[in-house]
């Protein structure tokens, strides 16, 4: 395998954009990405689209060539990847594999989701299709309720408190308020976070990420050629994808995500680094409890300690290991299929030192963790200064 670099990154703001459809969002991100490096579009040899539920949200299917042709990437293979909320993380993983294996030199990955054209109840139903329809979903489960059951068990086993969950929300909103591209730029207090209306006990409104529109894009190239196209390439030190059961009730222990542990172990091994070396991270905080468990599964804090770890400030923008300096899914927004690549864009921006007010102090080695469903797919990527 040859080393691979991210040579270009670009994304749309995240939010509710009534005037922009799925294709317009994807094209905007793609064009921003192409403008971010000296890679002429005719050099792109393969295209991946990460998208969860475009057909359900918009009615349009056959989305990969629908987007690639609109971007002027004529004739090249265009492949859509669906892995629930990890759709574009998975697309990124497969694009990396093509470049690492030497099949292609220049591969573009776009992640996109257009969610706000549907009602919240309909959106909740579409999102639920990433769960086990024959079991948990038929019983009335939503994704919030699945993570609520995870939170309930984590509280039971480890003494995690609602205040710990709220601390994650407060932290991510504080960071997101500094992000001009974030969906909800609003600082909240612990009291506000705790007073959110109940969604699924013990999760309230402020424990849940946002329903957003948005898109993000990157271009990958062999590291040895990266300098031809950009002054600041970012090296992919390690990347891995792993799987687990789709149904929550099939898992032996719902307070940990085996797919996260497996993907992290492989990514750390490939990168030749350990959890202690990671200076900052973008983690998949679809719900506040998910970030708490991710910090445990990635080895940043011992099992069961994720709540106090977040509350103590270690993961704040000024902490020893900032987590979700972008605002995370919680404040930046969570256009499901765009999230994985958006996390990569955010890590790239930090490594390049271009994150403005939310720039973290130590930014040469960062990690992105993208989770699908209630843990059935996970992609962990470790990026570093080239």
């Amino acid at each position: 395998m040859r080393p691979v670099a991210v040579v270009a990154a670009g994304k749309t703001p995240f939010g509710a954009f009534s005037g922009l459809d799925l294709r317009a969002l994807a094209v905007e991100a793609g064009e921003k990405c192409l403008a971010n490096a000296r890679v002429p579009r005719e050099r792109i040899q393969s295209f991946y689209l990460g998208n969860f539920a475009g057909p359900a949200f918009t009615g349009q299917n056959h989305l990969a060539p629908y987007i690639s042709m609109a971007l002027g990437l004529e004739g090249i293979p265009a492949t859509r990847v669906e892995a629930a909320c990890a759709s574009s993380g998975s697309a990124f993983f497969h694009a990396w594999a093509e470049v690492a294996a030497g099949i292609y030199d220049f591969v573009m990955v776009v992640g996109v989701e257009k969610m706000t054209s549907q009602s919240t109840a309909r959106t909740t139903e579409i999102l639920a299709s990433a769960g086990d329809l024959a079991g948990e979903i038929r019983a009335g489960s939503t994704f919030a309720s699945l993570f609520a059951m995870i939170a309930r068990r984590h509280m039971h086993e480890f003494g995690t408190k609602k205040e710990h969950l709220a601390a994650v929300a407060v932290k991510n909103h504080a960071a997101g308020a500094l992000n001009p591209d974030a969906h909800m730029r609003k600082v909240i207090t612990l009291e506000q976070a705790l007073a959110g209306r109940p969604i699924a006990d013990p999760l309230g409104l402020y424990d849940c990420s946002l329903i957003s529109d948005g898109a993000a894009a990157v271009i990958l190239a062999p590291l040895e050629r990266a300098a031809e196209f950009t002054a600041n390439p970012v090296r992919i030190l390690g990347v891995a994808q792993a799987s687990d059961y789709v149904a929550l009730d099939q898992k032996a222990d719902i307070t940990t995500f085996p797919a996260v542990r497996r993907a992290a172990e492989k990514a750390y091994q490939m990168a030749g680094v350990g959890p202690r070396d990671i200076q900052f991270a973008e983690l998949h905080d679809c719900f506040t409890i998910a970030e708490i468990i991710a910090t445990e599964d990635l080895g940043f804090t011992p099992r069961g300690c994720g709540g106090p770890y977040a509350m103590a400030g270690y993961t704040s923008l000024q902490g020893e290991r900032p987590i979700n300096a972008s605002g995370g899914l919680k404040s930046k927004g969570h256009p499901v299929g765009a999230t994985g690549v958006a996390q990569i864009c955010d890590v790239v921006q930090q490594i390049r030192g271009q994150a403005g007010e939310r720039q973290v102090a130590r930014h040469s080695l960062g990690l992105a963790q993208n989770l699908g469903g209630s843990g059935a797919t996970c992609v962990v990527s470790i990026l570093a200064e080239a």
Partner: protein
Amino acid sequence: MRTGTVYTETVIYSAAEAFAAEAPFQTAIVALDGASEPSRRLTVRIAGGRVSIGDRVVEVDSRGGVPFFQKVPLSADDVPRPEKSPG
């Protein structure tokens, strides 16, 4: 009738479109008796009063393929008996 123990639970306030009219309602993952974990855990709806982790539950209904479980009342020995009326 299947019986088991509540492994985890939640009360859903914001439901998917098809269930919106029923909210709030409680779901739980139940570890079934006499089955090896975790393959015999089941996601169920809770009927009757609310349950918590560790509560004993029994299947009381099935609607559209969805099992409904209810908290098992305390055994008869635990229930204080009404005092016998004198005479």
